[in-house]
């Protein structure tokens, strides 16, 4: 009897397998601002609808009619659940919710006074999302957090003065996210990758300063990453581009070259098919189309709202689960270790960019508010630091007189017990270390901040 009842209740809604879930907004999208959150992901009055691509005439089913706003849908690996960001009532903060797509039952994931948005499923029943932090001492913008899908075991994973948004998860298990420095001054957004425990954060893709990253990125089944970016040198056209996972920094392809108009989002369906939201002119709303990334042609229009824009679309289906990466983070450890093999290796791979190392060269470690110390570099260009964990810092090379020779580089941080290596300083991201014993690792690491006495803590044996 009970089972029958449950069955009747759960069968009251039809399966959503194969349906497309779209975010629909009243506003025309004029600009993007992932730092303040006043547009793009934070579109007041936006809503999620489900459309059946096999029945083009059907009225879309509203999924979030009890919310003031909802956006950023993300489908679970088994195709049975959906995460999204929503405002329950006008003026409320944005929070993450999960929907059982069979029963349409909703469960809150986050509950906070600050805004949470851009959720993405992680393997192992967890998710990553962006959240603002009030009075953040690290001067961050939106920070990345992970938690279980029931909201428990909340973990902050980014610790630098950057704002992160638009996260997705690569097949290799790492989080792909848009990061933009916000302190001491704003910089262009970059595509960053990091492990779900916040370790091994590094640059994945960056164009030039004239380019803005406008959408969440998705990995396709054939090893491409697709997203939307605008190029100020090209009439601020919002173009659909792809990069190769294998070589992201040098593989960009403008899939929409020759197509007038703007793209707002893209979602991979098959190797030969994308869902894109597109408009011909700025005066129009975005509509949903098929797109062939091989022929680079816009296909049929799937759905068009008479008076609203389709901001993004995802397909409800079971899909390959990303790898679940193990974590080296140990909350009982207060520091991380940073090893650099040779500071003389900087910039691109051109031999012209090999910095000539001089005796007496040092590195200065710079914190958010003050210098954290100066450390001698070994004769072979190597250094080895033990740094307070979860603390942002930059590095710059200085000579014996304290004159800056190179840098400072980007903000980085180490998680507790993280061990991280660099081939050089802000080096070409395609170079690997030379196989040699670095002088720096023959000694104990230098503790940073250097004014602190040696940090005594538990030792963790790796292997």
């Amino acid at each position, binding site marked *: 009897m009970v089972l029958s009842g449950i069955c009747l209740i759960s069968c009251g809604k039809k399966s959503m397998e194969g349906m497309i879930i779209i975010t629909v907004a009243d506003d025309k999208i004029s600009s993007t601002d992932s730092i303040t959150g006043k547009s793009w992901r934070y579109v007041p009055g936006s809503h999620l609808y489900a459309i059946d691509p096999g029945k083009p005439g059907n009225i879309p089913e509203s999924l979030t009619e009890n919310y003031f706003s909802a956006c950023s849908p993300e489908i679970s690996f088994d195709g049975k659940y959906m995460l999204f960001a929503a405002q329950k009532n006008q003026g409320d903060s944005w929070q993450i919710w999960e929907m059982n797509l069979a029963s349409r039952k909703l469960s809150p994931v986050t509950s906070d006074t600050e805004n949470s948005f851009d959720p993405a499923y992680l*393997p192992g029943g967890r998710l990553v999302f962006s959240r603002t932090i009030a009075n953040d001492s690290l001067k961050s913008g939106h920070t990345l957090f992970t938690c279980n899908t029931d909201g428990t075991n909340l973990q902050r994973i980014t610790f630098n003065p950057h704002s992160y948004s638009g996260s997705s998860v690569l097949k*290799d*298990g790492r989080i792909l996210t848009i990061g933009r420095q916000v302190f001491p001054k704003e910089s262009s957004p970059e595509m960053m990758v990091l492990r779900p425990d916040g370790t*091994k954060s*590094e640059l994945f893709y960056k164009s030039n300063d004239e380019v803005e990253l406008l959408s969440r990125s998705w990995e396709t089944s054939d090893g491409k990453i697709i997203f939307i970016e605008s190029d100020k040198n090209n009439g601020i056209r919002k173009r659909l581009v792809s990069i190769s*996972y*294998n*070589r*992201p*920094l*040098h*593989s960009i392809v403008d899939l929409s070259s020759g197509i007038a108009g703007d793209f707002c989002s893209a979602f991979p369906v098959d190797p030969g098919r994308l869902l894109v939201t597109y408009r011909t002119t700025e005066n129009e709303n975005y509509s949903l189309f098929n797109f062939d990334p091989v022929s680079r042609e816009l296909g049929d229009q799937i759905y068009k709202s008479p008076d609203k824009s389709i901001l993004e679309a995802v397909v409800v289906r079971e899909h390959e689960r990303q*790898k*679940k*990466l*193990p*974590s*080296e983070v140990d909350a009982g450890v207060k520091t991380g*270790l940073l*090893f650099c*093999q040779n500071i003389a290796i900087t910039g691109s*791979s*051109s*031999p012209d960019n*090999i910095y000539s190392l001089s005796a007496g060269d040092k590195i200065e470690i710079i914190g958010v508010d003050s210098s954290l110390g100066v450390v001698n570099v070994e004769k072979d260009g190597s250094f*080895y630091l033990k740094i307070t964990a979860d603390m942002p810092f930059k590095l710059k090379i200085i000579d014996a007189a304290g004159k800056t020779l190179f840098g400072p580089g980007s903000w980085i941080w180490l998680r507790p017990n993280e*061990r*991280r*290596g660099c*081939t050089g300083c802000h080096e*070409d*991201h*395609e*170079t*690997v*270390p*030379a*196989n*040699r*014993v*670095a002088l720096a*690792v*023959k*000694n*104990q*690491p230098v503790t940073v901040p250097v004014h602190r006495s040696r940090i005594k803590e538990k*030792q*963790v*044996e*790796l*292997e």
Partner: protein
Amino acid sequence: MRKILLITGTVFVLGLIISIPGKKLARDHVNIKTAVTDHPLLCTNCHLHIHKRSPFAGLDKVNYRSPLNLVVSNDGKLIYVAAQDGNALIVANVEEGKVIHEIEVGNKPHTVILDKSGKKAYISNQWSDNVYVIDLREYRITDTLLTGNGPAGMSLSSDEKFLYVVNSYSSDLTIIDLETGIETKRLTMGNNPTGAALSPDGSDLYVTSRRANIAHYGEPLVSELTVVNDKTKRIKAYMGMESAYLMENVAFTPSGDMAVVTLVRPKNMVPSIQVERGFMMTHGIGIVERKENGRIIQLLTDEPNAYYSDPFDIAITPDGKRAFVSNSGVDCITVIDVDSVRSLIAGSTPEMLKLWPDHLGISSSYVIRRIPTGANPKGLALSPDGRTLFVAERLEDRISVISTDKMETIKTIDLGGPRRITVTRHGRRLLNNAGHTFQNQYSCYTCHPDEHEDGLVYNMASKDMGRNITNTQSLRDISDTPPFKWNGKNQTVFKQDGIRFSTVLTRTEPFSYPELDAISSYIMTGIKYPPNLRFNPSGKLTEAQERGKNIFERTKDNLGNIIPENNRCIFCHPAPYYTNLKQVDVKTLSASDDSILFDTPHLNNIYASAPYLHDGRAISLEEIWTLYGKEDKHGLVGDMTKNQLNDLIEYLKSLRSPDYNDKSSEIHEASIYH
């Protein structure tokens, strides 16, 4: 019938025991045996697949073929395949796509080559120390040529009067006069040589080596490419391939202006703190410019976020336009545009050429395709017209046929092995595949080639980054010698390859328990020592070895004083594995080591495991005592004469797997009586 009754009865009885009242006992039993606390309670995991002395051991065994290398007939209609586990030369018809003949050969055949007429084949039997000569018209073995230890790659001299055989275990080259069938010369090669090829003009034989020259940790890593003058049969050059090893094979461009080898560039001296950014292994090719002042250039075939591990063989099309490399760790063939390589080299300054070996992005200028294959692609062979590439898919038991124009597989040829993949076979596939390391950067095979060890010492970055450097240990026949690791902290393979393994080494999703079961099954039951045909072929020791045995087992020193029991060789190293499975302090800790006791290593085939000691500081067995055992804490040796130490070393080199002591054993018969 016996199998069925045994299995059914045991499953029934164990089912009763393990049901409710016995579940806790079973849980405790499994926890103890696996050294982990969450292994599923499934009796067959251990008792059928892992315990080699279980009554059920071997019930799941099937005989696979495991094609390793192959060659194509002159008319392109037939392929001849060396089936490593099938101990056979398999002949297959390409057009029909099926096996037409099979000839039983020696133990672990490695390479097959043909003479120019195509009527005669030579197949090297790596575990039998000989080469079979086969008449292909009658499919008959016509002669057996004796070689050095571990014959692998081969080539005929330009006049076809001599056969060059690379002896992979004794690290030398046998030159056989084919008129008499007798070895006329033995030349020293690099460390663990395998691949051999004669230049197109017939002037030079190139021989690759897999292990780097033995050197102390921290010294530059150099592997040797040896050039032999075909006319004089003398060594013409020793060329060092810097920062590289595992040079499995070599091929020439048709004009002969370049020799190209496959290679791996390990990062054993870089702290193993991450996999990202090529911190563990990179893979590629080495190019030798064959001209005066010619350079040796290395290029990677990896990409910034994708690694193509364990390159094995290389074949270059007759028009010289394309080179194909089998990446046995990622199941694909990398296609290289040779002209693009030439352009890159021509347009690069000497400084740029120094950068390219450590540059992951440069491959996009010459790698034009990755062609997926079946499991563990090894040997390659091109048809005479260059339009078809044949790939020995070793752990798939088949040959894939690839169109070099379309650069895609057009058919496969099944070699007749069992279609069922046993748990052990699955484990072997896992061990040889890089899919369980982050971005496929390396497989178990990379550091354990042929399930042995790679002769390198690694900075495992334990605790601090410069501490506890570690000599790679062999995986051969270790089922009876737990615990594992130098410090003996891992009691089982389940623990060794569990969550910590993935956290600090592979840095990607851990093995699932079915995968761990498979890996354990292969490691615990499937990896044998090669026969010690070099130092102990028959079990009868030489006089020197006998004297060394007496020293090994002695209880009194040269002055007649009783040696304390725990300072006798035999105390810690008793037969048959020559380990008492205990941890001990032999005073070889260095300042950069944590204070640990060392798990007593097993000694069978110890001659093949240089360097020695936990950090590889002893580059020979002698050095263990002459340089690092002066305190007499690693056995009493201070009283020995030089001759006595030499005798002891000779005895140690004679130690071999107990499998070979049983003359009726399958493995013994296969090696000794062929």
